[in-house]
Structure formats: C-alpha cells, structure tokens
C-alpha cells in the first residue's frame, strides 16, 4: 500500500494544515453558536438544502419506481376489488359527513349563543413523504413540498387517523418535520371525554407517547382518546393524537405513569396532510 506516485508521495508535511483546521474549527463553533442561539442561518441551510435536493430525489426514486411498478402490474381483478371497496368506503364516509355538516351547523349556532367566535375550517394540502431517512436518533421525515408551496416552520402535519408531527425546517422544495414520537417533542393535548388538559411527550419509540404531568388522582382511563387542545398555538385543536393504553398509579408518587399509542401510523404513512390553520381563536376569546 505504499503509494509512490505523483505529488502525494513527498513525505514532507502538508503545509499549513494545522492552521487550516484551527480556522475551520473556529468557523464551526461560531456557526453552531449562532445556529443554536437564534436561527439566523436559515439562508445557508436553504442554499445547501437546495444543493442536496437532487440527491434526495435520486434516493427516493427506486422506492417510487417500485411502487409505480406495483401499481401498474396489479391485475384488473384486484383493481376492481379495490374499486368496490373504495366505493363502499366512500358511501360510509359520505353518510358520516352528512351528519358532520349538521353537527357543524349546530356547533356554529351554539357558539353564536355563547358569543364565541366560530371556528373556521382549516385548509389542508396533501404531501408525499420522501423515502429519505435522516437522523436515526431523531424521528424525522422529509416531505416533498416546501416554502414554494407556502409551507412554514411549525406547521402541523396529520394523516387520516391523527396528528403526525410538525414542520421544523422549510427548504424551497422539501421540508423536514419532526414526529410527535420524537424524544424532544411535546404536544398540548386534552382528553376528549372530559376536557382534561395535559402534555403528550414523545419517547423516542415510534409507538408510544408519555403523559408525565398527570397527578395521581387525574380522571384518565385506558382507552381515552387524546386530541390536540390547540393551546400551544402550533396545532389546531380537535385532531386526534393518541389513545391511552396504560395507566399505572403508584400511591407514593405525585404523578401517574400514563402512556398512549399514537393514532396516526407514524412508521407506515406515505402521504400526509399539511394544515394551514385559520387565525387562532384561542388568543382572543378570553378577555371578553
């Protein structure tokens, strides 16, 4: 392996190496400092992110191709079966939707009686998750729309069953989001049954959230549905988050040990919905 070729074989030291590495270390530390303190470096991130975009596309391509292949080779028979299933499902959903319209009207009327502002419907848009896996120690995902489509930092992401996560970094054509199961993520929720408010904290496990701030005597049971309370401001209220699956009360401890299973299939989703929530109601309601 002793290379003896060209200009590399000169056994002399590489000139200026120590100086260069010192400068680079200093620049890195400065960058980290500014990045940590406040996000003045979004421009740099965006520029580098745009440069990485083609690589993401290429990594994503085989998975897309495989799916496309699977779709285009399914037999007519299977397609017809699926069509039938979808039709039945649509009928059901439509029926439910009718009831929802009636309920919404009733809700608006009641809110009118209570003199609260009516809730405005949220705008949604479907995004594809790119098959790009970033950091294994964080539960992140990358979606295929970015600031060009109006995505903004902190935006809520849901799927058909519940809350998935929120956008943490917006590129031009892609955006990165953190899942609610990430160990650094916390989400204000309320129990659908009785309106009990608490915080659901990610655990780093994809199928578990913890509710660490519930006192021992809190009214919570296994099977309770947790929905977003909308108090944090990031998530619109009323989206299902998780179902309580374990409540352990230890007499000496101040807090009950409660965990819940996320409603959304966090590790299976391929398509998600981004929510553009209408200007929030919660901020103005109280002082009247």
């Amino acid at each position, binding site marked *: 392996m002793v290379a003896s070729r060209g200009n590399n074989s000169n*056994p002399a030291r590489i000139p200026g*190496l120590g100086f260069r590495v010192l400068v680079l270390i200093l620049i890195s530390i400065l960058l980290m400092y500014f990045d940590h303190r406040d996000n003045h470096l979004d421009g*740099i991130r965006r520029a*580098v992110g745009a440069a*990485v975009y083609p690589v993401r596309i290429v990594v994503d391509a085989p998975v897309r191709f495989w799916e496309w292949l699977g779709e285009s080779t399914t037999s007519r028979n299977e397609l017809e079966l699926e069509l039938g299933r979808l039709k039945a499902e649509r009928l059901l959903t439509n029926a439910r939707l009718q009831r929802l319209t009636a309920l919404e009207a009733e809700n608006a009327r009641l809110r009118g009686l209570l003199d609260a502002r009516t809730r405005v419907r949220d705008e949604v848009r479907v995004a594809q998750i790119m098959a790009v*896996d970033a950091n*294994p120690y964080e539960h*992140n995902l990358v979606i295929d729309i970015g600031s060009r489509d109006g995505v903004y930092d902190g935006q809520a992401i849901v799927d058909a069953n519940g809350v998935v996560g929120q956008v943490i970094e917006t590129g031009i054509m892609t955006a990165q989001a953190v899942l609610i199961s990430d160990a650094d993520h916390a989400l204000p929720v309320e129990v659908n049954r009785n309106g009990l408010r608490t915080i659901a904290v990610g655990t780093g496990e994809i199928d578990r959230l913890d509710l660490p701030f519930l006192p021992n005597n809190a009214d919570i049971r296994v099977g309770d549905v947790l929905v977003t309370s909308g108090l944090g401001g990031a998530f619109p209220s009323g989206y299902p988050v998780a179902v309580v699956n374990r409540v352990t009360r230890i007499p000496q401890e101040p807090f009950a040990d409660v965990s819940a299973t996320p409603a959304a299939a966090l590790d299976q989703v391929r398509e998600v919905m981004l929510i553009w929530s209408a200007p929030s109601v919660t901020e103005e309601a109280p002082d009247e």
Partner: protein
Amino acid sequence: MSRDRASRRLPVIITLIVGLMLTIMPLPEAAAAFRPDWLALLLIFWAIQLPRTWSVGSAWIVGIVLDVSYGTLLGQHALALSVIVFATVRFHLLMRVFPLSQLGATIFALLALYQFILFWVNGVAGVTAPSIAYWAPVITGTIVWPFLYIFLSGVRYRARSGA
C-alpha cells in the same frame, strides 16, 4: 494539468455522492442505528491516499452538507469531520504502512472520536442523550472498513489507469 486534476477528482466526488445517498437511504428502524458513517470512512480513505487534494477543507464542506440533511446544528458534523480528517492527514504516511489489524484499530479510534465530538456538542447544546446504540456505528464502521478499503483501492487504481 487542470484536466488531469479534474479527472482525478471526479471518482472521489462520485464516491462521496454515493456515500451521501447511503447515508440518507431509508433503512428499517432496527437497522438504522447500525448504519456506518459512510462519509467519515470515505473521507478517511481519501485523506490517507490523496491528502493534498482531500483534506480538512473538503471534510468541512461534506460536514455542512451532512448537518443540513440531518437537521443538526450547523457546524456540528463539519467540526467532527474536520478534526478526524486532520488526524488522518497528519498521520497518513504512517497509516499507509500500517498492517490491516493496526489500521482497523486506528479507524475504530477515529470513528469513536467522531461520535464523541458529535455527542459532546449534543451535550453542550442540550440535545437529549441517546441510548447506548448511539455508539453502534463505530463498530459497524470498523467492520465494513476492510471491504470499503479494497473497493476504493480498486476505484482509485482504475481511475488512475483510465486517466
């Protein structure tokens, strides 16, 4: 001369892009924690072989790209990569004549240093401390190193004879 240099750089750039792809390629949840640090290994290899062209500067740029695609603090991977590549370039002559076992131990130490710097920065920045599996890439990286070494030597030889 400049054409010669460009043709020598191209294979390395291609290996780095492939390395980035391997880094962001989706893996099953269980396997993802064991993914080797491909870019660190690649940069170490090229720093041993061509330390005048592939040194701390390129390591730093690759690190920034990694920071952006990981969404970590900007400069974190850049710092860690430039430090280990600095150590590599400093001792590249020695590492060229190391027997494979000794080289493996050195790679292990470099990867451990790399993970340690990342770990340390995380600690200072207050990011949640990960589990013991955090150190798994050090071991898998050392295991894949000999194969990567043989493969990259082939790439290097072919690129040179083709040019």
